[in-house]
């Protein structure tokens, strides 16, 4: 969620703020400091601890860069998050476009349906996908019963299952970030293009897509960071067959009791996400300027 705040902070007009304006922010600032900054600082501290209680050490960091299994997990996290970001954005785009343009009364229904899954909780939805994608799940049983396949298809405990589950979980956030951007494009621009002879497809290609690039970037960002930090879905749909950073951190803490190493992994994950978010939002504001929006 840090990303959303990140990109909305990019307001073009920078106003000079007085002390008075900051006063209402005092309480949230204290809460954030207590529950966000303090644990973060502790995490950084823990990552330098040595397991036998000795002097601060870089041991966990050097172990991280040498540990092939962990690095593979990092790679899987990046690939998975990238795929989820793309899938979310591709699926969310037509939905957001419909929501931005439609004046029909179904609009509210579609919007509700798009957002409603968020209310059901991640674990519940992920179990839903497990029921569908599992080796003995709906798809595999149905196909085997019909006789199309004899061995279950590998639909879960792998990249595919996790990407499907996460895409579903994160889709509403993609829709919301694209919706803001698409709603900012005046329908008269599309009408202008149309009356100048552009087909529906040409309007999308020459007008809507280029003007919504900032929205696309913000949807990709939300998709990437939310996927990279997700735990429940990779844990349930990936399991032991598909470990990502989040599930590996959990393992280190609960099974191996190696808190310093877990802290190192968490910090690396955090740096990855902040880095991607930073580059992405810089790109977004550069584009916004270039598009003269």
């Amino acid at each position, binding site marked *: 969620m840090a990303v959303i705040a990140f990109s909305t902070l990019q307001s073009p007009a920078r106003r000079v703020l007085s002390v008075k304006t900051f006063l209402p922010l005092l309480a949230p600032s204290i809460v954030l400091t207590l529950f966000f900054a303090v644990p973060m600082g502790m995490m950084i501290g823990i990552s330098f601890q040595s397991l036998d209680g000795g002097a601060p050490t870089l041991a966990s960091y050097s172990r991280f860069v040498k540990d092939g299994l962990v690095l593979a997990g990092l790679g899987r996290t990046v690939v998975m998050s990238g795929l989820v970001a793309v899938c979310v954005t591709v699926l969310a785009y037509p939905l957001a476009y419909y929501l931005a343009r439609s004046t029909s009364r179904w609009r509210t229904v579609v919007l509700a349906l798009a957002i409603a899954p968020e209310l059901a909780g991640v674990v519940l939805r992920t179990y839903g996908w497990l029921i569908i994608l599992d080796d003995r799940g709906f798809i595999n049983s149905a196909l085997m019963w019909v006789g199309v396949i004899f061995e279950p298809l590998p639909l879960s405990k792998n990249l595919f299952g996790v990407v499907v589950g996460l895409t579903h979980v994160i889709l509403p956030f993609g829709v919301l970030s694209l919706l803001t951007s698409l709603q900012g494009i005046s329908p008269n621009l599309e*009408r*202008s293009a149309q*009356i*100048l002879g552009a087909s529906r497809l*040409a309007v999308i290609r020459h007008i809507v897509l280029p*003007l919504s690039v900032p929205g696309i970037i913000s949807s990709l960002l939300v998709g990437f960071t939310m996927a990279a930090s997700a735990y429940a879905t990779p844990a349930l749909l990936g399991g032991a067959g598909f470990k990502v950073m989040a599930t590996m951190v959990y393992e280190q803490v609960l099974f191996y009791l190696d808190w310093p190493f877990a802290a190192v992994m968490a910090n690396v994950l955090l740096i990855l996400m902040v880095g991607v978010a930073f580059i992405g939002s810089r790109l977004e504001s550069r584009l916004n300027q270039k598009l*003269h929006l």
Partner: protein
Amino acid sequence: MSTIDIELHSVSKKFGANRIVKNVNLAIPKGKFVSILGPSGCGKTTTLNMIAGFESPTSGEIRIRGTDQTGIPPEARKIGLVFQNYALFPHMTVAENVGFGLKMQGRSREEVAAGAKRALKSVRLEGFENRYPKELSGGQQQRVAVARAIAPSPSVLLLDEPLSNLDLKLREAMRVELKEIQQDLGMTFVYVTHDQEEAMAMSDRIIVMQGGAVAQEGAPADIYGRPRTSFVADFIGKSNILPISAVADAKTGNGSWRVLLGTAGMPIMAARMPGLVPDKARFCCIRPEAVRLADAAGALDEPANLLTGTIQKVVNLGAYLEAWLLVDGEITLKSMIRSSRLDKLAVGHRVELAIAHAAVQLLEE
């Protein structure tokens, strides 16, 4: 080839239960500057949107160059459109904006560039090709919007209040320019506005709309000089609209009608209105400039009503004075009188007035 570019036959448009456009019949002649004039919300944009193909009529038929447009999408109608807020593509340069229509026609890069250059030349905006819309003034954006619409050489250009975002000075200059562009290109312009001065200044024909229906249609002088309803008389220019109690069809030598004004029934002679049933007339309209001082300087060489009025108020408008005159104890007439006659117009004075018979117009409703 027909000389009518656009025809509307009994076109109506409903949004839900609201009838926004009511049974509109129009014929827009080729090469003419035609204005659709009416107050805000009377259905002008909706009518234009139906011609452009963004909305389809609930009933009725629209023909462009003789062809029924039912089911033909906007991109296939080959007409130009200029929006009130210009709707320039913010991510394209001026040249790309103006060349867009030609590019969509699949023209070569050179043809697109040449066409854009030509269109920019006709709106007098050369040398701005590489600017982005945000880097232009309102007036320049307006020109780009017009250039973009005319670049693919459509036979008809629709303009929806294109000048209303400009300040008064620029608006007046652009009126002249738009008219010149239209005449240079010989293109049919359908110009939507709620500004009656604008419509009067530019149009060959004016279509006055009221509540989704056509109230009156005709040449500007026609509409101004012979309004048919009190709505048109009131909307176009300034006017005195006075209730009449009866029309006595007393034919005098010149064929005027005798009308009784107000409740007191002051008799006055009015112009004969062909096609108007005298009994249906409820009001009459007298333009302020037709109310003159009846002395040597204001003498009329046509049959005129002679009245006496008391000056109640005088407003100096520079070249003209607006005088409010109380006639017959109950009727207030506004009059426009040249400022040189200020000495005649002291408040409280009684003055003799002359109003030509032909200047008293009976109104249907």
